[in-house]
């Protein structure tokens, strides 16, 4: 089966082929569920929010103008829903104290990370990301893992581009502090 673009499936859905939407769900379900889980930190709530995001996207598909990527549009729906859910539950967005990590420290940590086995590194990254505040988790994943542009992230979060850049920079620093702590813990556990 040939892989079609998002726009192809969108047109199919708009033409009345509801089942075509399942291709879009399959394609983006991990991304949207991941974002929901990062923000709500609860599997059940995250699943419900992710499902609602897709249902909402389906119902308002005719309003998607195609000025941004479909994934960006979808992310924006999920992000806004997660933010309002968090506000209702009075969940904190920011909690980690900003410690300082020098550029040299960062390089050193990156070098150490480069020497670790992929499986272990994956665990460290997961652990570190889970310890970050919700919005930093989202920014780190969007920018460094999914390689979304600053412009797209600004559209998703509703922040200015310069604000996104600053937040990504800070989130990366926090991530390095956490990775440094994890590495130190590992060293001590061997001693």
């Amino acid at each position, binding site marked *: 089966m040939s892989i079609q673009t998002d726009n192809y499936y969108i047109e199919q859905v708009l033409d009345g082929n*509801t089942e075509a939407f399942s291709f879009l769900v399959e394609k983006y379900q991990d991304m949207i*569920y991941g974002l929901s889980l990062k923000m709500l930190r609860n599997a059940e709530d995250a699943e419900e929010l992710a499902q609602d995001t897709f*249902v909402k996207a389906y119902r308002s598909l005719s309003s998607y103008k195609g000025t941004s990527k479909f994934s960006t549009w979808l992310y924006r729906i999920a992000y806004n829903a997660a933010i309002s859910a968090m506000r209702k539950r009075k969940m904190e967005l920011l909690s980690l104290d900003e410690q300082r990590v020098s550029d040299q420290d960062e390089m050193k940590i990156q070098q150490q990370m480069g020497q670790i086995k992929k499986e272990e590194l994956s665990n460290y990254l997961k652990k570190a*990301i889970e310890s970050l505040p919700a919005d930093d988790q989202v920014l780190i994943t969007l920018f460094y893992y999914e390689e979304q542009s600053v412009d797209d992230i600004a559209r998703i979060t509703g922040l200015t581009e310069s604000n996104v850049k600053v937040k990504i920079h800070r989130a990366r620093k926090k991530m390095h502090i956490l990775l440094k702590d994890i590495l130190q813990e590992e060293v001590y556990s061997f001693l």
Partner: protein
Amino acid sequence: MDKRDEKFREIMKAYEPVKAPVDFSRKVMEQINSPIASKTVYKPVFNKWFMRFLFGGLIAFIIYAMSGSTSEASQKPELINSLAQKLPKVELNGLNQLGQQFGELISGIPSVVIFTLLAASLLLLLDVFILKRFRQTIAV
């Protein structure tokens, strides 16, 4: 994007994000294809402010109607009387006439109708409250 960003992107390739549950797509499509897919959002018949105003008005009227029979017998305290004398007098004859006409009109309405109206407005007020609760439940 500087070198540290690029290097960090390299490192992040090892990251394995959580995957959506296996039956996620099926559940979404079920919701979409469900005959009651569009959540029937409950809406009150009247706007909540209209209802509050109506209810307030009715309560005020009942109090006015009930106090009407006893007001003649009661006397205002001296302090209130002296304060009332100091206040500038306003010609209220027109308003009084209007009030009397309104009173006559209302007194012509059978009490059953008034009680029905009161009950209906109370129910509609509860309706607004139920709607609020309903929205909160949907949001959670």
